[in-house]
């Protein structure tokens, strides 16, 4: 068994065509997931049973089931209902890209809401009380006192979540989407050279995760620059 370097060099440009889909999925799903995650967080910490309970159930369901199953339920499962097929969302849901984005968004929102809640609970009560003593309104306290600290506390966990999202985008290849893994799988099906192709794809992913990790590290340093000396 010998590794064919020429095959790797030939396939890398092909694999890089998939990087666009991977990044689109990642950016769309993480932005939408962040938005939905903040809404879920607000529901969760609202202190009202009828808001916090659904948010809890949502997070419980999406964190307790595999992303692959969620993708399958949305991609294969939803068309079972006529309502879905007749609704305006069908334009999005009939495309694998829309389904993958939706599944990753819903999944990421559940994790993001828990991460932000962790940050929120980590904020010292004293800051909150100081804000109250200064006569800040409730939503001002939340926006200008609690949230900036909570976000800083949540960055390390969020960077992990972002990287697992990047890895989860590879699951989109199971619903016929040609992201990087999807392209790699097609090439392997043609050449049957799994070592060369899959390992070079893995290296591309590795480079991407390293870049994102470094980026978040710099961002965290920036956010906590007042803490150090």
């Amino acid at each position, binding site marked *: 068994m010998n590794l064919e370097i020429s095959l790797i060099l030939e396939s890398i440009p092909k694999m890089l065509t998939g990087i666009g889909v991977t990044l689109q999925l990642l950016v769309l799903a993480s932005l939408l997931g962040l938005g939905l995650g903040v809404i879920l967080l607000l529901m969760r910490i609202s202190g009202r049973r009828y808001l916090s309970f659904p948010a809890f159930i949502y997070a419980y369901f999406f964190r307790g089931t595999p992303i692959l199953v969620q993708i*399958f*339920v949305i991609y294969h499962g939803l068309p*079972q209902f006529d309502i879905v097929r007749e609704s305006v969302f069908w334009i999005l849901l009939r495309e694998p890209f829309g389904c993958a984005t939706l599944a990753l968004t819903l999944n990421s929102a559940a994790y993001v809401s828990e991460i932000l809640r962790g940050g929120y609970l980590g904020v010292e009560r004293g800051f909150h009380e100081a804000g109250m003593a200064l006569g800040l309104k409730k939503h001002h306290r939340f926006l200008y006192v609690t949230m900036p600290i909570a976000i800083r506390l949540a960055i390390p966990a969020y960077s992990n979540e972002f990287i697992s999202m990047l*890895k989860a985008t*590879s699951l989109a290849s199971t619903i016929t989407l040609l992201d990087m893994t999807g392209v790699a799988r097609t090439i392997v099906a043609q050449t049957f050279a799994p070592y060369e192709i899959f390992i070079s794809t893995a290296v591309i992913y590795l480079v991407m995760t390293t870049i994102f990790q470094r980026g978040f590290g710099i961002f965290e340093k920036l956010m906590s620059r007042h803490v150090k000396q």
Partner: protein
Amino acid sequence: MADLSGWWDDYFWGAVTVLRVFGVSVILTVVFGLIGASAKLSKNRIARKIAGAYTVAFRGTPELLVLLIFYYGSAVFLTSVSKIFFPETQFVDIPPFWSGSIAIGMIVGSYATETFRGAFLGVDPGHVEAARALGISNVQTFFYVRIPQMWRLALPGFGNHMLSLMKDTALISLIGLEEILFVADMATAVTLKPFTMYMVVALIYLSITTIITLTVLILEKYANRHLESAR
């Protein structure tokens, strides 16, 4: 519910397969995690480098890709090896159950390496020194002094790893293991009720992860019973 009649037994055996994969991979996770953590904490530079490369590689690549490399890679390798001895062979592979369990065990093991490393560092060095002063061998110190104290510290992180391990088992259906996702696929082809069928899979996973979460909570309580204040 009516759609599901006739499929219960398939789902049941699929769930059994999932649990078997889980059992094998948990053991492998612990083994790889302990080896990785010991290597990372060892004085040997090469061991530290290898363990570092292991965690970076397995934590940075998608689980699906690792699984595909393990399954198709081993198949290509074994086929080419067996062709040397038996020229008429067509295709040899490690069964999906084993290649999948090993791949998942190694992936989650790379996460467990970090957790275990942190937990080993949390063991009071005085205890290890005391063991050395008593003339206890390194191996015995590892099993009787370090491990009993570190597992308590590692438990919360390890519980999370077990949850992600459970969820990763779903991927093995992609390389052809007949577990619940595979059953749902078949059932869909017959009944044309994909949502119901995949939702059952989701609920099975949800109940298993719930059981794992509760078990870890009980274990944590058991591990920390000496810290509870006397009443």
